[in-house]
């Protein structure tokens, strides 16, 4: 096992996972001396009847102070300010956030304001402004992918200035993540597939990234195994509650892995494609993941070879000679994408070319690739990729991903072999 010459690892989130995990919330709140939580969520979640489920499980024992269910798809600081106002006027003393990335980010922002005082989140911009324990925050994820329940950063947009602000502080970590399969049961297959692949990607990138450490390694391998064994099964049979729970666990494990080890090329290109063409994050992840591995073969081939075991199981791993394992791992991921594509009636995308919105319009026209490549160079995740990524490199990978063909590895500019950690 690799012991890096230096590493940091922190995940102060208490995980409560299982059937009926929601029912544990009142007790957990009481232990933190809280009795009047505010629920924050978005319209999609409340529309699916999930808030009813949560209040049903929680409301018997504690009084819910307020419910805010109008968080926009991109968390916005004005919304944060508004929610904080409601929180105060209703005399709440803790937050339960139900949803995916945006509600969780928003709730973290709200927690800053209601704990430290003030009416404007912008006053707390910059690292190092949050240095004390905040109000109890319980996260109930509903997507099994983003892993936001395990990350310490809140990303909140300022739409007037068209920027995204990051608030990094360990105090923003939720106190508790509650993983209950009922919360992800209603997610339709065509959304389950890409969110599952997002978690899969977090784990893979955490395992081969520059900032990997022993704990991010073992959690990544667990997460990959859970996704490989359950994703296709759940997509084919959405009511498989055990499978749903396994995916929720995988997402949390992948979240704790990548929030301590960071991500690389896949997220680098994914963030850029999402930003330029408004493609959902999970779709980008599924498409770029094979390339993110292929691009780093010469630096971390052995590590990628390791991934074959959790992806394909002991038998395939044992049959495949060591040298062929990295390629086999990538081939298995491509096959998984294909299987998901078939199982969702073509709504799970295999390449950039075939991504369309609901009206059937192509979202990533070939002309946008240069702009995506340029945006990617400014994205932070490239720092943690073992091989350098320049504009030309990014464009080269994008062109392959557009067609969905395996990466021509002769085109990779190799900055040396092997990587020390």
């Amino acid at each position: 096992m690799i012991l890096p010459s230096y590493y940091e690892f922190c995940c102060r989130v208490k995980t409560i996972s299982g059937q009926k995990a929601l029912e544990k919330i009142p007790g957990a709140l009481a232990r933190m001396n809280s009795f009047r939580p505010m629920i924050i969520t978005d319209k999609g979640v409340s529309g699916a009847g999930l808030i009813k489920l949560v209040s049903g499980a929680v409301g018997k024992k504690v009084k819910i102070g307020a419910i805010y269910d109008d968080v926009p798809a991109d968390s916005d600081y004005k919304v944060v300010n508004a929610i904080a106002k409601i929180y105060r006027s209703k005399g709440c003393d803790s937050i339960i956030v139900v949803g995916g990335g945006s509600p969780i980010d928003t709730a973290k922002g709200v927690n800053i304001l209601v704990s430290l005082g003030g009416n404007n989140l912008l006053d707390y911009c910059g690292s190092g402004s949050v240095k004390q324990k905040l109000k109890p925050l319980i996260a109930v994820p509903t997507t099994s992918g983003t892993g936001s329940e395990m990350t310490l950063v809140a990303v909140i947009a300022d739409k007037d200035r068209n920027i995204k602000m990051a608030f990094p502080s360990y105090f923003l970590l939720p106190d508790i993540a509650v993983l209950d399969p009922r919360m992800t049961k209603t997610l339709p297959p065509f959304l389950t597939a890409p969110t599952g692949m997002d978690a899969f990607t977090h784990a893979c990138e955490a395992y081969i990234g520059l900032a990997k450490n022993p704990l991010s390694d073992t959690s990544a391998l667990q997460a990959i195994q859970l996704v490989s064994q359950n994703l296709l099964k759940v997509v084919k049979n959405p009511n498989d509650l055990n499978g749903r729970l396994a995916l929720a666990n995988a997402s949390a494990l992948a979240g704790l892995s990548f929030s301590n080890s960071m991500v690389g090329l896949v997220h680098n290109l994914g963030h850029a494609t999402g930003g330029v063409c408004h493609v959902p994050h999970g779709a980008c992840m599924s498409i770029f993941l094979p390339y993110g591995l292929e691009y780093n073969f010469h630096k971390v081939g052995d590590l990628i070879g390791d991934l074959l075991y959790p992806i394909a199981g002991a038998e395939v791993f044992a049959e495949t000679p060591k040298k062929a394992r990295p390629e086999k791992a990538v081939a298995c991921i491509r096959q998984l994408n294909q299987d998901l594509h078939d199982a969702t009636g073509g709504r799970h995308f295999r390449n950039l070319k075939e991504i369309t919105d609901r009206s059937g319009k192509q979202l990533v026209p070939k002309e946008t690739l240069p702009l995506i490549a340029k945006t990617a160079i400014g994205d932070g995740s490239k720092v943690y990729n073992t091989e350098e990524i320049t504009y030309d490199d990014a464009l080269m990978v994008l062109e392959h991903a557009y067609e969905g063909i395996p990466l021509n590895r002769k085109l990779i500019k190799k900055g040396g072999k092997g990587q020390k950690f």
Partner: protein
Amino acid sequence: MQTPEYFEFLNQAKIISGKKALEHIPIELDGFNSRKPLVVTSKAVSGAKLDRVLAKAFYDSNTIIGGIFDEVPEHSSFSLAKELSILFKGRGCDSIIAFGGGSVADVAKGVNIMVSEKNEDLLSFIGEGKVKTRLKPFVYIPVSYSDGTEMTNVACIDHRIIKSDFLYPDIIAMDPRATKGCCRECVVSTAMTALTHAIEASSVAHYNPVSDTYAHSAIQFIYENLAKGVKSLGNARAGLALANAAVMAGITFANAPAGLIHTIADALSSITGHNRGTMMGVLLPFGLEYKISKKLEIRGELLLALAGLDEYVKTPEKEMAVRSLGLIKNLIKSLKGALPEKLSDMKIPEYHLNEAAKIAFNASGKKYKEQVCLDVLQHAYEGKSFI
């Protein structure tokens, strides 16, 4: 891979490990708005001049060390905790650093309760869940000796137990300068404690995927580094890896019920006064053998953690447990006598076994039958195999 029906897991600590980790403590404390820690440690640390290394690590920062108390004895006491709380308050400290193993961390936790709860009566916190408020920032710096509880939510003072999730350290800083092996006995005892805890925490009955990630790292680090660490005590890499293992195993141990081997070892060491880690090391192979003989499942993944992927995938599932046991026995053999082979080698009178079995039975809440405990103890006493 099975899906757990239900589990909980918490690791409160931020772990920092490696080159110059001590130098990072000031900025970590600053993240808690803390500028003046009290350092609690023992002569073992100051004797190796590590207290000076720590003081130097704080140079060029804005962090003042409120004092370095280096006289914590092997057993912690309420009276010492009280004296230290007076020192803490007198100096206007706002955080605590425990530098060392066992009693050092216990006493530091006690001090932290007194100064944070503003209550002089530490006895009133004995038991579980009596601590109600968040405590002052607490840093734990591991050395090569650990009794496996420093990083947990438990403090043992004057043989009384205080348990609360607030007792977990906030920061664990592992630095190769501090974790170099001090003596063979300490290194082996620490590693055997960790190995036993990690193996028992990742049992079949309490499958917990998050806990597993810590347990598997711990097992792997011990298997790969223990022989090296015992052979050359100055080996900084092995020392750091073993400290990592101890911390990770401790965290899983805090999240799982105490296992059979831990419980028996704890009972016997409380009667005989022998080191608990050594005891666990002696009992571990016999305890595992017992489980195998009774067809109590041992996780196949144990072999994965011990032997690595290539060997794991080649081993038929049925043989995994026996193979794992074999590897652990080989590991103990490679320590060349740093660990006694059987209990009788430790000059323990045989009549203590019955007593230990009784205590273990009660301590486990009647989970581990007295006869079972005695059976394991007797085999371990004579060095007799179960299989």
